[in-house]
């Protein structure tokens, strides 16, 4: 396993900075030693000098003075006492005197060794002089002796003895002086030695200190060397372990070293390419010339490029000549001894690129699949909704006929069922399309939540007519202006699903919808919608499941509740789309309370509170310029075409049809249309394209073009805005919606100030007595019927109820069924209180007293209603 190959020399760690330190230490040491040696030798010399002082000898000389004299004196005595003075005896006397003589001579010569400053010296000199004088006198006496006689000798003796005290003086004084000199010398010697000792000690200490410092230095250097080595090793380890190839280059592009990964990338594990240039390895041929001409400039250029881009994708060549795509990053650095080097990081991109391509392919496939899914969804939505749409529309149209109330009811049921089926299909598709990730492109539109709630409540009452459940709603805080700008469809879906869910699961009691308008902290208006029921509730533990798609909470084994299990999920998604959060507060057997709140920006309420009735086949709007408004219906589906045609004819238009986009464009150019209902999804030229074509220069270019589509959400918003359509409507289209949209676009945002003759006005006497033309299913009934027809029908319903109450009061047979039917009718019309009362009657049929009270209540309510209606 090759380790990072670097050919540069490893410099000596620790030298350089510290060698001067070593030199300093050495110099100091040498200097110290030199000083010691010099001082020592000086001291030694002084000691040696002491040895030359000849003090001992001088002392001897003085000590011998008396001795030599006494020897002479002794000889003299002997000679005096001898029997005969032989020459031999005289010789001896003379010899001893000569010796004494020379001794005195020596002493006299030694005078000069006494320091003249010393106090005793003069005395000594004086004494010595006297001794010399005496000696000289003696010498004269002795030399003049011819034949010595005893008497002569005695004289000499007497003379000699005179000198004895002086000799004593000389000796003692001289010796004293000499000893003190001697001791002084010894002392100086001593102090010299002490000085030397002190110097040596200091020297030794200094040496010790320096040695310690040197040791410490050496240790520290060693540690540093170790640390450096560790660092270097870890650096090598890092570089070697790197997955990227790391190549060290000189500034001229010569390879200094590389790690295993690089060897692998460049496929040169079996050779050593250190020392070769980039030209030999790595550079593709077309770069080689540029490199060869000026390697340093080439490298600098590479740096310039990288300064902008950080990393560089380029083509490189392996040692075997194979080209590959690589990513390169460069960095300038210094090697261990400070030379400039370049570190190159190389990553083989072939795999990465292959992966990227694979991912791209997968993504494209997924997109394809997604669009396939989308297309499928669109197709399905179209295919599934179209027949339902047809059914609903046909049923709508059927209501024109003169049905009995029973028939009407059946018709209603049929329509409800179809609508329910459609709703289910829409729900499923809504979920699928949500999951497909299509954007919610529904634009914000002004609508009245109250109206929608009324509609939903009406439907709910119908569904719940067989149960002992009342459905009611109330509004607070709206101050008469309950319209908001928002996602109408999402709102409808949310509330409808919540209410449906409540209706499904509540057996007894009530379902209440409460709309609360309020202002938040930032003074923006918000709307909180609460849907509460007295149903079995959803235990907190299972609440999450309740919201999950296709899950239902069943009580016991019996699946009493039929449903797709999608309702709550759809409601939640719809709330999410509006930017709210759906909350659930519920416990088992304590009912469920759903709530959500959304932004509720003000708009003026669209004119729906009153029923807008076309007088007869009149113009759709009095402001319409055209006397005979012409409309074009474009749809590839015949049923849709017919339906829309009928609707528009109802609204007073002269209608023409086109089967596809091309036809539409043709016809739109032949006639001037004021309104075009354009189906979007059509084979060949689609609705957007046709619209664009019509907008650009056809006779109908100024027409109000409304797009009609089965799936609003999946439409391309950009295409829509580009096409020139005014609005997109969702199928199935009710005539009321159509009218509203048309009047909206024709009249503009501001409301038509002209009052319509209201048929039934919304009268909020007490909320229980609200009959609104838009409540329940009355809305579309009212839309499809003439005014007098509506009145008659309403009357018929009320009669039916009255009859049922009469029958009940008289306890006629079959009255319970009648009451039942009446309750349904009451619900249908939108009389919850009455419905509730009638339900109670039905429920209490056997028990006389409850029945009676219920009857009483029902009658009471009914009377009140009649009163209201007649007053209106």
């Amino acid at each position, binding site marked *: 396993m090759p380790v990072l190959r670097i050919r540069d020399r490893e410099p000596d760690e620790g030298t350089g900075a510290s060698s001067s330190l070593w030199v300093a230490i050495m110099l100091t040491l040498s200097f110290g030693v030199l000083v010691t040696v010099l001082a020592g030798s000086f001291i030694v010399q002084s000691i040696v000098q002491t040895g030359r002082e000849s003090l001992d000898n001088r002392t001897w000389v003085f000590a011998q003075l008396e001795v030599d004299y006494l020897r002479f004196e002794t000889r003299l005595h002997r000679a005096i006492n001898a029997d005969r003075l032989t020459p031999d005896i005289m010789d001896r006397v003379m010899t001893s005197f000569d010796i004494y003589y020379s001794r005195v001579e020596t002493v006299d*010569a030694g005078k000069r060794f006494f320091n003249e400053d010393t106090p005793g010296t003069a005395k000594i000199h004086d004494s010595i002089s006297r001794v010399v004088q005496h000696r000289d006198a003696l010498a004269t006496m002795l030399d003049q002796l011819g034949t010595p006689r005893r008497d002569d000798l005695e004289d000499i003796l007497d003379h000699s003895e005179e000198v004895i005290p002086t000799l004593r003086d000389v000796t003692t004084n001289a010796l004293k002086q000499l000893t003190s000199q001697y001791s002084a010398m010894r002392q100086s010697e001593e102090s010299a030695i002490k000085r030397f000792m002190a110097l040596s000690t200091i020297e030794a200490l200094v040496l010790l200190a320096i040695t310690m410092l040197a040791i410490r230095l050496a240790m520290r250097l060693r540690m540093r060397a170790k640390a450096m080595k560790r660092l270097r090793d870890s650096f090598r380890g890092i570089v070697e372990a790197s997955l990227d190839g790391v190549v060290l280059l000189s500034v001229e592009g010569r390879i200094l070293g590389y790690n295993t990964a690089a060897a692998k990338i460049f496929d040169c594990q079996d050779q050593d390419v250190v020392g070769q240039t980039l030209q030999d390895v790595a550079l593709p041929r077309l770069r080689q010339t540029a490199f060869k001409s000026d390697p340093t400039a080439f490298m600098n250029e590479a740096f310039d490029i990288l300064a902008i881009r950080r990393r560089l994708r380029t083509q490189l060549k392996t040692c075997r000549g194979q080209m590959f795509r690589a990513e390169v990053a460069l960095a300038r650095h210094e090697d261990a001894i400070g030379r400039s080097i370049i570190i190159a990081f190389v990553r083989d991109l072939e795999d990465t690129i292959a992966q990227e391509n694979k991912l791209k392919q997968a993504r494209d496939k997924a997109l394809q699949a997604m669009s396939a899914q989308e297309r499928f969804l669109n197709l399905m939505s179209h295919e599934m909704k179209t027949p339902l749409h047809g059914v609903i529309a046909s049923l709508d149209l059927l209501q024109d006929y003169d049905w009995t109330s029973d028939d009407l009811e059946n018709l209603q049921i049929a329509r409800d069922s179809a609508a329910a089926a459609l709703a289910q299909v829409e729900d499923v598709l809504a979920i699928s399309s949500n999951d497909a990730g299509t954007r919610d492109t529904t634009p914000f539109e002004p609508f009245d939540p109250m109206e929608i709630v009324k509609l939903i409540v009406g439907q709910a009452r119908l569904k719940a007519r067989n149960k002992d459940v009342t459905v009611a709603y109330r509004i607070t805080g709206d101050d008469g202006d309950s319209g908001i700008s928002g996602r109408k469809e999402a709102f409808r879906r949310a509330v409808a699903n919540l209410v449906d869910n409540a209706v499904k699961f509540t057996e007894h009691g009530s379902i209440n919808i409460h709309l609360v308008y309020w202002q938040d902290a930032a003074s923006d208006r918000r709307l909180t919608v609460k849907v509460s029921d007295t149903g079995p509730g959803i235990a907190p533990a299972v609440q999450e499941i309740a919201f999950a798609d296709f899950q239902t909470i069943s009580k016991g084994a019996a699946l009493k509740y039929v449903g797709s299990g999608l309702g709550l999920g759809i409601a939640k998604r719809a709330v999410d789309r509006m930017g709210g959060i759906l909350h659930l507060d519920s416990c088992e057997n304590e009912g469920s309370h759903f709530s959500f709140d959304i932004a509720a920006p003000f708009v003026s309420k669209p004119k729906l509170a009153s029923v807008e009735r076309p007088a007869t086949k009149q113009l759709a709007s009095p402001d319409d310029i055209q006397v005979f408004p012409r409309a074009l219906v474009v749809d590839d589906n015949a049923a849709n075409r017919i339906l829309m045609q009928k609707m528009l004819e109802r609204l007073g238009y002269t209608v023409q049809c086109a089967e596809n986009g091309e036809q539409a464009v043709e016809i739109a150019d032949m006639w001037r249309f004021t309104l075009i209902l354009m189906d979007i999804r059509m084979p060949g030229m689609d609705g957007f394209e046709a619209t664009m074509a019509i907008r650009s220069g056809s006779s109908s270019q100024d027409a109000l073009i409304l797009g009609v589509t089965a799936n609003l959400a999946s439409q391309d918003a950009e295409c829509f805005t580009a096409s020139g359509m005014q609005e997109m409507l969702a199928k199935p289209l009710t005539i009321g919606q159509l009218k509203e949209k048309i009047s909206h676009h024709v009249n503009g945002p501001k409301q038509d100030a002209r009052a319509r003759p209201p048929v039934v006005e919304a009268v909020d006497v007490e909320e229980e007595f609200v009959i609104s033309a838009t409540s329940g299913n009355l809305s579309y009934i009212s839309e499809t019927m003439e005014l007098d027809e509506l009145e008659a029908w309403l009357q018929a319903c009320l009669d039916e109820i009255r009859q049922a109450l009469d029958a009940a009061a008289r306890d006629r047979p079959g009255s319970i069924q009648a009451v039942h039917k009446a309750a349904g009718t009451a619900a249908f019309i939108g009389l919850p209180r009455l419905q509730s009362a009638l339900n109670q009657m039905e429920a209490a049929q056997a028990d006389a007293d409850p029945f009676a009270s219920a009857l009483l209540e029902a009658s009471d309510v009914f009377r009140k209603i009649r009163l209201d209606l007649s007053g209106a």
Partner: protein
Amino acid sequence: MPEHQTHTPQRTRRFICFLLFWTFAAFAQVASAQDILLRVDDSTGLSSDSHTATFDRGQLDALPQQEFTTSTIWTDAERLFSGPALHDVLDAADVSGDTVHLVAANGYEARMPRDAIKGTVPIVATNIDGKPFSVREKGPLWVVFPYDLDANYQTEEVYAWSIWQLTGVRVSE
């Protein structure tokens, strides 16, 4: 002694004795000009091996002469000392031994190792300033080192070896 004899033969005998006495004295004087100045011997213990030699002035003068001028701690001026080298004297005496004892007239003795006596130093000075010097002048023989010439001669040891009034040299083991 008979008193009344004034015979001529008695007067003649006295005259002859007186003459002889003075002749001997004269001879003694003459003989004392060649008096023995130095006695050198070694005592190795075995009498057969011992040598004794005596030197008079003439004999000492016959040996190679050395001379140098130096001051000493016993004289007050520089003097020229001349005489044979002690080494040559010992060689001439043919004595063997490692220790040399120098004996002075007053009995003072100094001991020297034989190896300290080499070459021309020390000398047995016979003349100071070209003239012999008497006992009073620390003569007739003085072992002198050239003190001024070398600091090594200025030590107590050397001073102790510098015997004047040298009379004898005894060499032992």
